[in-house]
C-alpha cells in the first residue's frame, strides 16, 4: 500500500518594513456623527448611555478591578468576580491555576468537549462564566523554541486546534466526531410552499428517550442547506396533550397547506387532528394553529384506539379528499381509507384500501402515483393510463418498511399490488439499512423525491416492477475537491486508496469484469440477504467478488465499513444474482453495545452484464449507498473511533479471483451545508 505523507514547513521571516504613507491631497472631511444606538429587541427607542459621572470609578475602585480577582462595586450593584477560570488544561474550579478534586477530579484534554466539562462544573456550582483558553501565538522564541501554553509553531496544526477549541466552547449536544455534515437526521414530512421546502420531523426536546414528541420544523431553498425554526406543532390541547405524532401535509387549492397528524389525547387514544398556518402570508410558516373542531377523526368502537395513526397526504378523487390511516386487526396490517368533501367531516370507507395478513401494525403509510416510463413525479391526485401506484408501509413489528407497486381502482377505493411485488416481510424496500418511517413529497418544480438521510429522487424503473432512487441533484452543490481515476485494475487481494479527499462522497464508481463465467452458484436456500452477508463478508474469498469500497477505514484497517458486491450464478436461465452488502461489523473498535448489522439486499443481473455501479455518500457516521444506479439502497450508521475526520480513508478492493476493473471513479470532498442553524432576527 502506497501512502503519501503530508508535510508542511513554516518559514519564518522578518516582516518587510511598512511602506511610507502617501501624502493626503486635501484634508479629509469630518466623519458623520454616529447614529444613535438602537436595539433589535427593544424596537426603535435609542439606548441611553449612563451619565458619565455615575459610571466613572475613582482610582481606588479602578485598582481593585485589576488582575483576576475583581472586587465588588456596591454603589453600582456589581458583585465581585474571579476571572481566573482556566480551561487551558481542562476547566478549573474558579480560582487561580488549574485545580481539581472533590466533585470534579479530572479534566479533559480534548478541546472538543470543553463545553461539556464547563457545563458540568457550572451545574455543580464550581465554575464561572469565563474561561482562559489557550492563546494562539504561533511563535518560536530564539531562546527556548516553541512558545508554551500555545498549540505550537505549526500554523496548520494551531489553526485546527483552535477551530476545534472554539467549537468545543460553543458546545455541541451531539458528539462532534459522529455528527454528520450533510445528512439530516430522521425526517418525517415535507412540503413545498412559496419556494421553500419545509421539513417537519419528530423531535423530543427533552432528550433521547421517546416521549413529549413535537413537530420540529426546518426550511430550505435547495434541499441541502437547512435552517431551524421553532417547533410547528407541540402538545397543547386535550386532543394532543400526550404527544404530537406523525402525519402529513397536504396543500389544498389556493396554496393552502394543512397538516393532519395523530395526537395522543388526554385519554391516551390515538386521534387525527388538523393544524393550519396562523399566518398564511408568512413564507416560513412558523406558527400553526389547531382549531377547536379537533379531533377530526377518532377510531370509533370497532377499531383499536392504540393502533390508529399516521394520516397520509390526501388525494382528490370522485369529489372527495381521501386519506389513509395506518392500523392493524390482530396480526393483519391495515390501511383504512377516509373520505371528505370539505377536509373537516370524514367518513370511513366500507373497506380498507388494502391490508395484508401477518404483517402486524402498519405505521406511516404512504400512497402515491408514479408514471410508467418517466422519471417525473406526480401530484397525489393524478390517475390514468400511464400511472401505477405505490403503497409503502412501515412495519412496527420488524422496524423496517416495504412497498408494493400496483393499481389503484379509484371507483372502488381498492389497491391491488402486482403479483411481482411481494406483499409482506420479503417485500421491496426503499432502503435495506437503517431507514424507517420515510415519507415522499411531490415538488412541481422538479421530479418527485423521497426522504431519508438525504433527499432522494424516486421513479418507477422501466420494467415497472420497482422504484429507483438517487440523491437529489442539489447535493452536488456541496462538492469540493475532486479526485478522478479510470481503468484501474484490482486483482485478487488488492487495495487501492482513493486519496486527496476528506469526508468523501465516492461517486458513481463503475466496476467492470471480463465475464461472469465461473461465478459461484447461488443456493436457493439463501433467502435472507443480511444473513448471507454475515456468512460471506468482505474478507471471505470468492470468484466474482467480493469487490467494492472500504469506507471510513482507519490507516491499518482496524476499522472499516465495506460496501461491496458478490455475484452468483442464479438458478434461472441467463440470470445472475448480486448480493450488495453494507457491513457494519468491522466499522468500529467500540465494544459490542453498538448495533453493527451486516445490511444487505439482492439484485438481479443479466448473465451478459459486464459492469455494476456504486455510489456511496459518506458522512462521518453515515454511509448511504446506491447500487446499480439506484436499484438498491442501503444506509448504514456507524461509529468509528479511529477512522474519524482526516484519519478516515477510502479504498477500493477486490477479494475475488476474477480481476475487477475500476472503469471510472470520481470522488469528491463534501463541504458543510448550512445545517439547522436558527434564522437570525426571525424570533
Amino acid at each position, binding site marked *: 500500500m502506497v501512502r503519501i505523507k503530508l508535510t508542511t514547513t513554516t518559514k519564518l521571516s522578518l516582516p518587510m518594513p511598512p511602506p511610507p504613507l502617501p501624502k493626503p491631497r486635501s484634508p479629509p472631511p469630518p466623519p458623520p456623527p454616529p447614529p444613535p444606538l438602537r436595539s433589535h429587541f427593544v424596537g426603535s427607542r435609542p439606548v441611553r448611555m449612563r451619565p458619565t459621572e455615575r459610571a466613572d470609578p475613582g482610582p481606588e475602585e479602578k485598582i481593585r478591578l485589576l488582575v483576576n480577582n475583581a472586587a465588588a462595586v456596591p454603589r453600582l450593584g456589581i458583585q465581585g468576580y474571579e476571572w481566573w477560570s482556566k480551561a487551558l488544561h481542562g476547566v478549573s474550579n474558579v480560582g487561580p491555576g488549574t485545580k481539581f478534586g472533590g466533585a470534579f477530579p479530572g479534566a479533559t484534554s480534548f478541546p472538543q468537549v470543553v463545553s461539556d466539562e464547563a457545563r458540568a462544573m457550572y451545574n455543580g456550582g464550581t465554575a464561572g462564566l469565563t474561561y482562559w483558553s489557550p492563546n494562539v501565538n504561533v511563535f518560536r522564541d530564539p531562546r527556548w523554541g516553541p512558545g508554551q501554553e500555545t498549540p505550537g509553531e505549526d500554523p496548520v496544526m494551531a489553526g485546527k486546534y483552535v477551530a476545534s477549541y472554539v467549537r468545543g466552547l460553543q458546545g455541541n449536544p451531539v458528539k462532534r466526531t459522529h455528527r454528520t455534515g450533510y445528512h439530516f437526521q430522521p425526517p418525517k414530512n415535507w412540503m413545498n410552499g412559496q419556494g421553500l421546502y419545509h421539513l417537519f420531523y419528530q423531535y423530543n426536546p427533552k432528550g433521547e428517550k421517546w416521549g413529549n414528541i413535537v413537530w420540529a420544523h426546518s426550511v430550505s431553498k435547495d434541499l441541502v442547506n437547512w435552517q431551524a425554526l421553532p417547533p410547528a406543532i407541540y402538545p397543547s390541547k386535550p386532543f394532543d396533550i400526550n404527544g404530537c405524532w406523525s402525519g402529513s401535509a397536504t396543500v389544498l387549492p389556493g396554496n393552502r397547506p394543512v397538516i393532519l397528524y395523530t395526537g395522543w389525547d388526554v385519554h391516551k387514544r390515538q386521534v387525527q387532528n388538523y393544524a393550519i398556518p396562523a399566518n398564511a402570508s408568512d413564507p416560513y410558516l412558523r406558527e400553526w394553529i389547531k382549531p377547536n373542531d379537533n379531533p377530526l377523526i377518532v377510531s370509533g368502537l370497532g377499531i383499536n384506539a392504540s393502533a390508529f395513526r399516521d394520516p397520509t397526504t390526501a388525494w382528490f378523487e370522485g369529489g372527495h379528499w381521501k386519506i389513509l390511516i395506518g392500523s392493524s386487526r*390482530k396480526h393483519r396490517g391495515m390501511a383504512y381509507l377516509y373520505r371528505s368533501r370539505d377536509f373537516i367531516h370524514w367518513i370511513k370507507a366500507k373497506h380498507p384500501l388494502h391490508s395484508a395478513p401477518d404483517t402486524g401494525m402498519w405505521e406511516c403509510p404512504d400512497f402515491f402515483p408514479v408514471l410508467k416510463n418517466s422519471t417525473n413525479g406526480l401530484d397525489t391526485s393524478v390517475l390514468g393510463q400511464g400511472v401505477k401506484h405505490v403503497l409503502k408501509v412501515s412495519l412496527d413489528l420488524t422496524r423496517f418498511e416495504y412497498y408494493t407497486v400496483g393499481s389503484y381502482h379509484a371507483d372502488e377505493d381498492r389497491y391491488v399490488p402486482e403479483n411481482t411485488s411481494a406483499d409482506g416481510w420479503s417485500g421491496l424496500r426503499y432502503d435495506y439499512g437503517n431507514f424507517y418511517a420515510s415519507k415522499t413529497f411531490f415538488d412541481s418544480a422538479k421530479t418527485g423525491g423521497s426522504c431519508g438521510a438525504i433527499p432522494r429522487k424516486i421513479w418507477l424503473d422501466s420494467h415497472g416492477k420497482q422504484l429507483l432512487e438517487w440523491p437529489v441533484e442539489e447535493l452536488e452543490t456541496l462538492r469540493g475537491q475532486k479526485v478522478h481515476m479510470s481503468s484501474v485494475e484490482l486483482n485478487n487481494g488488492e487495495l487501492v486508496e482513493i486519496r486527496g479527499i476528506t469526508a468523501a462522497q465516492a461517486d458513481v464508481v463503475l466496476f467492470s469484469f471480463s465475464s461472469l463465467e465461473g461465478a459461484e452458484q447461488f443456493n436457493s436456500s439463501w433467502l435472507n440477504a443480511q444473513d448471507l452477508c454475515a456468512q460471506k463478508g468482505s474478507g471471505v474469498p470468492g470468484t466474482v467478488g467480493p469487490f467494492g469500497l472500504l469506507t471510513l477505514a482507519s490507516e491499518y484497517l482496524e476499522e472499516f465499513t465495506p460496501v461491496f458486491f458478490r455475484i452468483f450464478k442464479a438458478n434461472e436461465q441467463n440470470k445472475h444474482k448480486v448480493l450488495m452488502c453494507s457491513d457494519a461489523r468491522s466499522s468500529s473498535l467500540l465494544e459490542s453495545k453498538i448495533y453493527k448489522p451486516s445490511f444487505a439486499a439482492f439484485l438481479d443481473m443479466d448473465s451478459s452484464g459486464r459492469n455494476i455501479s456504486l455510489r456511496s455518500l459518506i458522512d462521518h457516521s453515515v454511509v448511504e449507498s446506491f447500487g446499480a444506479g439506484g436499484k438498491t439502497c442501503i444506509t448504514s450508521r456507524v461509529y468509528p473511533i479511529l477512522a474519524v475526520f482526516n484519519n478516515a480513508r477510502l479504498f477500493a478492493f477486490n477479494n475475488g479471483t476474477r480481476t475487477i476493473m475500476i472503469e471510472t471513479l470520481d470522488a469528491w470532498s463534501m463541504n458543510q451545508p448550512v445545517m439547522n442553524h436558527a434564522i437570525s432576527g426571525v424570533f
Partner: protein
Amino acid sequence: MTLLSITQLFLITILPFASANLVVDTCKKTPYADFCVSALRSDHRSSTADTPTLGLIMVDKVNVNAKSTLTEIQDLLRKSPNPRTKQALASCEEGYKFTITDLVPSSKDSLTGGVYKFAEVNMNEAASDASDCEAGFGGKSPLSHSNDYENKAASVAAAIARLLL
C-alpha cells in the same frame, strides 16, 4: 331392456356416487366433518364439484351467514344496549364487515385463481374473528348460534383450501 340401456342405467347410478364420495372424503379432512357434509350437500353444485368448487361453496356459506349476522348485530345495536355490550357488538360488526368486504372476496379470487394459500389464511382469519366476537361478550352472547356457524364454516373452508396446497 337392451344391454346398452342397462349399462346406461348402471353408469347413471355410479357417477353421482363419485362426487358424493369427494364430499365425504374432503369433509373427513376438515375439523367439522358432519357439519361439512350437510352444508355442502345443501348446495346442488356439490354433486358435480371439484375440490376448489367445494371450497367456493363453503366460502359462500361463510358469506351468507356473515351477512345475516351483520344484520342481527345492527338490529341489536339500534336497541341501545349497555356500554359493554355495545362495545362487543361494535367489535363484532367490524369483524363481520371485514369478512364480507375483504376476506370472502379475496378467498373466492384465491380459489378460482389457483393461489390457494390466501383462501386458507383469510378463512382462518374469518373463523378467528367469529370466535373473538363470541368471546367479547364474556359469556352472555346474543350471537352464539351465528358465531358458531361462522366459525365452523370458515374453519372448514380453510381446511379445504389447505388440501389444495
